[in-house]
Each structure stands twice: as structure tokens, then as C-alpha cells.
């Protein structure tokens, strides 16, 4: 039997998340190049969209199920997944580089005596080795690394690897009941934040900086994010001023993001901010100072007043969307 690559899928509140399909596509793609077999695994209780995985060409999905595992439990999920990976003798494991993936993957690395590379933005095969490219120093530099361990773990940055639809046979879903999950560490509640979408997950981000002048003006950012179906981001200056919550901070000491579109409004483009967003596919800057460093990384810019531009931009996009 061919060696296995295992995509570890992520479910929250009973649904597989988009990052799961990204991880599945990465696994399939590597498996095809290496002559290996891609499978997927997920831990949870009832999951309503398991069959969606079949669109991504994964031949087998194992659902490790227990009623106490609908929420994440670091101890139970890591034990369950590590023993499953051992059973299936998986050589390579792919996780999404999400809050859950970052928490879980290193624990499993220790349990499997595996090497691990986090936050990969590119995985390519050279001479039968997986070469991973990942950012360091918050994206100010990139490294190419290779793992020399028997078992290898890679986590992949959300939004970078697009899920690829495959027209092929269906997925065999096998449900395995988990026995006595280890709940030494358990999630007892989830406090949803009022923001609709998290910057770490969004494909479009509209960020505001000190140029927005005050928290009362952020509705202009929120409205643009809303018409675009995007998330609201912020510079550290406005987070430190208490205008916006820390979870929205983009940058070296906030979140590092790679959306398709990043719109920076009244943000100067300090090196720590650029570090967190310059790998975005397209960057738009709106800043009244035409010499602001943000324009050095922007694809398109308007060197004008956010209070004039933002309402007009929101209006124009609303028009074309309707």
C-alpha cells in the first residue's frame, strides 16, 4: 500500500471550515507528486458538511467521533489524532495554520517524534523531498526548509493555497467512535466577538489607522468591509489607543495576513505593519500623504482624504454589487 499523507481537517460548531479544503488540496497535490495516497481525518461530534470533502478528490475521510468532542480539547484532540496517525502510519501530516492547528500540530509532532514546519506559504517537491517556504521575521524574509525526520508535519497558511475542485470518485467516510477522550484540558465555552469575520480568515481586509482620527469614524471602515464581505483590521496605533480591539491588529505583533485584497486607510505603513500584510495579493492604500511608505507596497493608491474617499468607494462598490 502506498504511503499516506494525512490532511487534518478543522471543524468548528459542527461544520468543516474552508481551511480544511485548503489542507485537503495541499495533501492531494503532494500525494500526486510523490506517488502517495492522500486521506483526511477530522475530530468532532456531529458534522453537517462532511460530504463536501469529496469535491476535493480525497478518497477516504475518517471521522473520529465522540459527543464530548464537538468543542476543541487540546489534550483529547492531540491524543486521538496522534494515535490515528500512528495506526495509519502517515508519513506526512498537513494542518491548517489556524489557532487550532498551531495549538495542535506541535503536540502531535512530539507524540510522533516528527519534525514540523509552521505557516508554510509554498510546498514543492524537489528530488522527492518536500521543500517548504515560510516567512520569518513576520514576512521580512523567507526561508526554504526541509525536514529530515521520518514523519513530517507542515501547517499551511490560510488563504494561500486555494482549494482545488476535482471531478472524481466519491469519498469513503468512515466514522470511528473515540473511547474515553482525555479531557484534562477542555474548552468549556466560546465567547464570540462582535466583529463578523476574523482578519486571520478573511479574503478581503479593510484596515484603519490613526488617520481615521477616532473610534467614532470606524463605521466608514466597517461599511466598506461589509459591502466587500471582508473583515475589519487595524494598525497598532489605533489598538493601543483603545479605538479597536487587539484581535484586529495586523502586523508583526498582531496578525500576519495574506488576503486577496488589503485596503489600508489612514495607515502610514510602518515596518511592523508592513511585515504583517505585505504578502497580500493586492494592496490598496488611501492616505493623504503621498510619501507615506504604505504606497511603496500598494498596487493602487489614492493620495487623498479618507473621509472623502471611503464613503465614495463604499457607494461605488455597493452600486456594482447590486
Amino acid at each position, binding site marked *: 500500500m502506498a504511503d499516506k499523507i494525512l490532511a487534518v481537517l478543522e471543524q468548528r460548531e459542527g461544520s468543516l471550515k474552508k481551511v480544511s479544503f485548503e489542507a485537503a488540496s495541499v495533501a492531494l497535490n503532494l500525494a500526486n507528486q510523490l506517488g502517495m495516497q492522500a486521506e483526511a481525518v477530522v475530530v468532532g461530534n456531529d458534522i453537517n458538511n462532511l460530504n463536501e470533502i469529496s469535491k476535493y478528490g480525497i478518497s477516504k475521510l475518517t471521522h473520529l467521533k465522540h459527543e464530548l468532542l464537538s468543542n*476543541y480539547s*487540546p489534550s483529547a484532540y492531540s491524543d486521538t489524532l496522534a494515535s490515528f496517525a500512528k495506526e495509519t502510519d502517515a508519513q506526512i501530516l498537513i494542518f491548517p495554520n489556524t*489557532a*487550532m492547528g*498551531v*495549538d495542535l500540530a*506541535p*503536540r502531535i*509532532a512530539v507524540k510522533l517524534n516528527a*519534525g*514540523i*514546519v*509552521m505557516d508554510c506559504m509554498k510546498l514543492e517537491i524537489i528530488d522527492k523531498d518536500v521543500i517548504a517556504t515560510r516567512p*520569518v*521575521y*513576520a*514576512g521580512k*524574509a*523567507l*526561508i*526554504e*526548509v*526541509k*525536514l*529530515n525526520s521520518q514523519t513530517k508535519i507542515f501547517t499551511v497558511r490560510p488563504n494561500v493555497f486555494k482549494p482545488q475542485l476535482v471531478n472524481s470518485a466519491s469519498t469513503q467516510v468512515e466514522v470511528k467512535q473515540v473511547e474515553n477522550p482525555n479531557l484534562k*484540558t477542555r*474548552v*468549556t*465555552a*466560546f*465567547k464570540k*466577538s462582535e466583529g463578523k469575520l*476574523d482578519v486571520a*480568515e478573511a479574503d*478581503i481586509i479593510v484596515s484603519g489607522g490613526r488617520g481615521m482620527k477616532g473610534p467614532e469614524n470606524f463605521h466608514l471602515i466597517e461599511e466598506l468591509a461589509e459591502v466587500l464581505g471582508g473583515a475589519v483590521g487595524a494598525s497598532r496605533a489605533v489598538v493601543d489607543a483603545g479605538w479597536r480591539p487587539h484581535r484586529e*491588529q495586523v502586523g*508583526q*505583533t*498582531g496578525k500576519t495576513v495574506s488576503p*486577496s*485584497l488589503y485596503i489600508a486607510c489612514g495607515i502610514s505603513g510602518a515596518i511592523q505593519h508592513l*511585515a504583517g500584510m505585505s*504578502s497580500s*495579493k*493586492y*494592496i*490598496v*492604500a488611501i492616505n493623504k500623504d*503621498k510619501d507615506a511608505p504604505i504606497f511603496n*507596497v500598494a*498596487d*493602487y*493608491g*489614492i*493620495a*487623498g482624504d479618507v473621509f472623502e*474617499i471611503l464613503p*465614495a*468607494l463604499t457607494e*461605488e462598490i455597493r452600486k456594482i454589487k447590486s
Partner: protein
Amino acid sequence: MKIAVCISQVPDTATRIKIGSDHKSIDPNGVTYIINPYDEFAIEEALKTKEKIGGDSIVYVISVGDDSVKETLRKALAMGADEAVLLKSSSAKDSIGIAKALAEEIKSLGCELVFCGKQSVDYDSGITGQLIAEMLDYNCVSVVVDFKLEGNKITAEREIEGGREVVETELPAVITAQKGLNEPRYASLKGIMAAKKKIIAEKPAVDSSSFTEILDMHLPPSKQPGRILGTDKSAVPELVRLLREEAKVI
């Protein structure tokens, strides 16, 4: 109780990174080093915990690195940590190698509670705390923005996409600190003076082979400076057209 804080030293975040001549690491010339920003939250939480539980608790700060790290350890001592340990290693280690060295020391010191920064802003992997916990078979909560310890019981909130998870566990445990957990204190003059007399123990870091091989380090492809489309709202329709037709992102 014995509390450990694992800290690292990183290039100042304002540093413009230059690639070293080996093409595998950065050029250290002209780089100033600071304490990893997330580690300040870890130190603060350790000190707060010690103040709260009182008794004869000890806060150790531990780091893996060369002699230059002493300065950073000294800063942590000035904030109020009691003792420091420098695990000396001249060769580069990957996250697993560093975690092994730290875990070994935490075990020999007998620390039941360990704080780390949630991520070191150099290699940015964000996994050291989880690795240490797993190696020591400790419980672990990562990316923590709220921490409570009552007796043996820990209630922590960790930041995830779209909200916070409330996590319960028990000691012994590793907690990794996220911004928002607390406001790190500044070292007082008295603290700075006292730190000069505190001990920095030096030991060799345990040897371990590394699974990770860095093949190359390079700068990201530089972006062509973009187009400024105008200076007022008359540029908006053109911007929207480009986003739709050229970039195809909306």
C-alpha cells in the same frame, strides 16, 4: 511554587532585515536585540501570579542562546524575576531543539507553572510552549488573553478566530501569553539595581539533533511601487474598475 518563564531575544521590530553571507540566516551587523515582545506579557503574568499566591514562590527566567542573551535575562530580572538560567548553545537549534533544552531545565528546577510568549518574533513558529508541555506531559493553554489560577485549577481564555475559548485545566501547565493578557511593568530603578546582584546561572543546553534544515533565506520579491490613481474621490471609479478587471478581487 516554582514558576518558569521562557524568554527569547529577537531583533528589534524596526530592524530592516539583511540576509547574511551564508544565505541561511540574517546579517547580524547593526541589528539591535530586544526581549521578544510577547515574553514581556509572560514575565508580567508570572510576577503577578507570584504576588498573588505569595509564600516562597520563585520566578525563574530561562533562555537558550549565547552570551549576548544575558542582557535580555538581566532585563527580566530587573522587572522582578528572581533567578535566571542561560542554557548555552552556540549552534542553531530548531523549535524542537530549543523546547527540549528548556523542558529539561524546567524539569530539573521542578517548576509546575511555565509561561512563554505565544510566539517569538524571529522565526515566528508559535509552538515552543506547546512543545515543552508535550515533552513534560504538562497541560497547556496557548495564546492566552486571560488567566486565573485557583489552587490547582486554571481557567484561561485563549484567542481564536472570531472569539475566545474558555479553557479549563490543572497544574502542572504551560501558558503562552498573547498581547492583552496584561500590561507589562517597567523595571524600576530599584529593580535595575537589584538585578545586578541576581544570579544568572550558565549551563550547556542539552544536545539534540535538529530535524529542520534551512536551505536558503531570501528577501520576499520586492513589489513594484503601485500606481497613485488620484488625490480625491474622482479616482474612485478607476480604482473599482482596476480591482474588478485587472486584479479581479471584487
